[in-house]
């Protein structure tokens, strides 16, 4: 009996938000945003280790709760409650838009809870993808949307898709070496295979892109520039944190060590830290934007995180010792950043309501602008060259048509000639002669 209850409870953590994502359901329920968080809070408060295996779902998906997951789930639930409060104030005139936003909200929530609870790679991937797309929707779902936000959101989307493709390859590699896709078994399998280095790099790259870790941070900065407080809190609390969590879960930390990868990661983290300090300095000189500086703080934290991961990879035993503290680090990071962001954005909005319109992409440092330039350039190439290419082909086809016309006329003329008596009789007699000759000289 107790088992069934636990099963239901665990399932309802991502399940209830998913269910409430249906407009007919949530539009009839009051307080539905809080209702959807409830199972997560209950699970986070009960201290118990429990897991279930849904073998009929996809290739078999596992959900489980342990101390680490509980911590994250609790923090995340808190964040969601905060965001829900902010959201319930921010409503649009149109019912359709409200419904859409609510659905996206629920989907994102389900994704984030599911990812925290997932005990296998596929499950994590599924839920984090759901969360990613849902979050993208939330970013752009408002009525009054700054066009820069829209562009930034697009960059986020592209980054996320690329990251997902990477992680998909990771999944394939894992599936190749092990039957069981749960984290524990996958780590064992991958640690013994030839794919280890590839696996490590793909995972790090994929999640680093999702978390916006230097040097893949460009989308994060761009998105933050024009975000309201609710979305800003969500961004640091959900996609970024889930991505960091993903790295922790997917990497075989504490089970195997890969010195080169680890050291390289440490190096990257260090450079990232220095670079971010540099950025903060410039930002302070140029714009004095509190929000952006908070965002850069996040970059600092993620740089630290990468150094930690790098260390964990170089030495498995060290990792086991401070593994738990890393989880605390993420949890606290999300909370702290959320509060900080909420405060600064509030402050900023009070102080500079007039400058908001002037804020443009140009505010970014020149060395930060290259991704946008590259995207624009590629787009231009695509849209300019292809039509010409096609017109060339069309011309050729037309030419062919003319040729056919000429042929047609000459054929018709030949047929007319054939029908004249003189030609006909000549042909006939020639044929008779030829046939007879052929026979005789055979």
């Amino acid at each position, binding site marked *: 009996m107790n088992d069934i209850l636990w099963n239901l409870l665990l399932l309802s953590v991502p399940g209830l938000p998913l269910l409430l994502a249906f*407009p007919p359901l949530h539009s009839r329920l009051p307080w539905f945003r809080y209702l959807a968080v409830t199972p997560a809070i209950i699970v986070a408060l009960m201290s118990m280790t429990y897991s279930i295996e849904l*073998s*009929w*779902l*996809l*290739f*078999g998906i596992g959900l489980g709760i342990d101390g680490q997951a509980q911590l994250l789930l609790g923090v995340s639930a808190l964040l969601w409650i905060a965001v829900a409060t902010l959201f319930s104030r921010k409503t649009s005139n*149109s019912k*359709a*838009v409200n*419904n*859409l936003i609510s659905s996206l909200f629920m989907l994102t929530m389900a994704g984030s809870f599911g990812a925290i609870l997932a005990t296998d790679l*596929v499950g994590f*991937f*599924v839920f984090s*993808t759901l969360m990613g*797309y849902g979050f993208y*929707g939330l970013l*752009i*779902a408002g009525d009054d*949307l700054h066009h820069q936000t829209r562009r930034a959101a697009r960059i986020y*989307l592209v980054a996320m*898709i*690329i990251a*997902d*493709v990477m992680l*998909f*390859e990771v*999944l*394939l*590699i894992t*599936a*190749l070496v092990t039957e069981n896709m749960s984290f524990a078994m996958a780590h064992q399998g991958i640690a013994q295979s030839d794919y280890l280095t590839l696996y490590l790099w793909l995972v790090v790259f994929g999640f680093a892109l999702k978390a916006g870790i230097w040097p893949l941070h460009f989308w994060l900065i761009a998105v933050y520039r024009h975000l309201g407080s609710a979305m800003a809190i969500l961004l640091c609390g959900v996609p970024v944190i889930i991505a960091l969590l993903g790295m922790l879960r997917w990497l075989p930390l504490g089970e195997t060590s890969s010195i080169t990868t680890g050291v390289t990661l440490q190096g990257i983290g260090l450079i990232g830290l220095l670079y971010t300090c540099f950025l903060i300095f410039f930002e302070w000189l140029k714009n004095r934007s509190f929000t952006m500086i908070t965002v850069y703080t996040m970059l600092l934290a993620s740089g630290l995180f990468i150094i930690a991961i790098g260390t964990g990879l170089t030495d498995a035993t060290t990792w086991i010792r401070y593994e738990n503290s890393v989880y605390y680090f993420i949890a606290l990071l999300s909370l702290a950043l959320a509060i900080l962001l909420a405060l600064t954005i509030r402050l900023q909005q009070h102080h500079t309501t007039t400058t908001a319109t002037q804020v443009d992409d140009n505010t970014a440092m020149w060395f930060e602008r290259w991704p946008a330039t590259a995207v624009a350039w590629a787009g231009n190439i*695509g*849209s300019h060259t*292809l039509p010409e290419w096609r017109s060339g082909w069309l011309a050729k086809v037309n030419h062919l048509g003319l040729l056919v016309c000429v042929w047609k006329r000459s054929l018709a003329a030949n047929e007319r000639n054939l029908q004249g008596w003189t030609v006909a009789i000549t042909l006939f007699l020639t044929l008779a002669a030829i046939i007879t000759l052929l026979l005789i000289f055979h």
Partner: protein
Amino acid sequence: MNWAFWLPLLIVLSSLLAALVIFILPEEKTKTRIGLNIGAALLKIVLVAIMLWGVHSGYQFETRLPLLPGLELVLRADTLAMLFVALSAGLWLLTTVYAIGYLEDSPHRSRFFGFFGLCVTATVGVALAGNLITFLLFYELLTLATYPLIIHRGTEAARKAGRTYLIYTLAGGALLLIGTVWLYTLTGTLEFTARGFLSTLDSMHHPALIIIFVLLITGLGVKAALFPLHGWLPQAMVAPAPVSALLHAVAVVKAGAFGIIRVIYDVFGIEFSASLGVTLPLAIVASVTIIYASVRALFQDDLKRRLAFSTVSQVSYITLGVAIVGPLATIGGIVHLVHQGVMKITLFFCAGNLAETLGIHKVSEMSGVGRRMPWTMAAFTIGAFGMIGAPPLAGFISKWYLGLGALQAGQDWVIFVLAGSTLLNAAYFLPILYAAWFGKSTGSWPNERNIGRYETSLALLIPPVITAILAVLLGLLASVPFSPLEWTRLITSLEYTP
């Protein structure tokens, strides 16, 4: 002369007879026609269900009729055939419902539904064909039955599209014919056999076999829209939406892909084809198709054209899966036959709904349409994400097995093709979704029609919603017994020497 003999024949005949009756039905007898259509579709589903159960419990269903001395018309229900038959029977019902709603009050419905039934007959025949000549027979019948559907609208553009279609498919059919006859002269049999029937042939015939392979695959590749033989498909989208849906999801394109599967597995045998060295070039052609068509899709503003190029790209997944030699890739390829069908039919239904209800034909007109037609666009969204391969939808499963199979077979380059295709798919589908859900609606649409209390008439709405739900379930419940994936595993286990 018992059930095992009659059942395959009955399944083929159920739609054929309905079609013939519908042909001679006067235009104004709408009720009778609807009854016949739905009745035949339901009957077929029941028969197919019986047969599925029978095949699963090990019965042999086979119809044999003499056709030529030494050659017979064979209809046989093997596992692979059943997969395709079930797909076509199921989607036929939905498409019929949809078509009834779509063509309400339009002229020439008897003609339309007649050929529609013929088209399904041919598809089921293609699926059940037990040897190459039977396959060829129904394959050509399919060409003929689809042509009137494509030019149904009777406009100049439709005629042109029909002409292009014929030029391609008849030429393809001719190549297929030569290949088949040649094969027959070499072996004296054309019977589909698991793991092929050619491996015992003297090795001096191998060059000829390679040529035959090329002939057959080129012939089939026309319908499967392999690059550079895909030119007819984007043009054929001038057909009414239900036709496009059927064409892209079940009938023509799939017949080609199914043929490729048959030829490689049951004529040549996958291991023998690999030893002939013909699978790698095929895999490369399929890959090129996947990428090229996706790139072309990016630049289409016409919604159905974009979907058409997407089909070109997606159907080549099947070919790719087959051409990567390995059981897992095979699963991916064959299961995509079903998955792509369900997803693509959803997309085309939705495109048809937009065109029929709001007069939207172009992507650029779709801004804000999600608020006007939320159910339709929700179904569309699921279909599109499925195409991208987002988990846990059907497309994810296919892509998973394709990628896994490629790695298993040591053909790592395929991974890049898949990744590139995912990115491109996202690039041409997501802007549509973005515009539909988050774009500002620009007032009223070109010719908006007010249809009742739902966003559009129910006959148009229910089929895409059902297929969208199917697309989700096919992914989520992939490991459940009787799911296409599990069925495909069964098929695959027969094709590889253990």
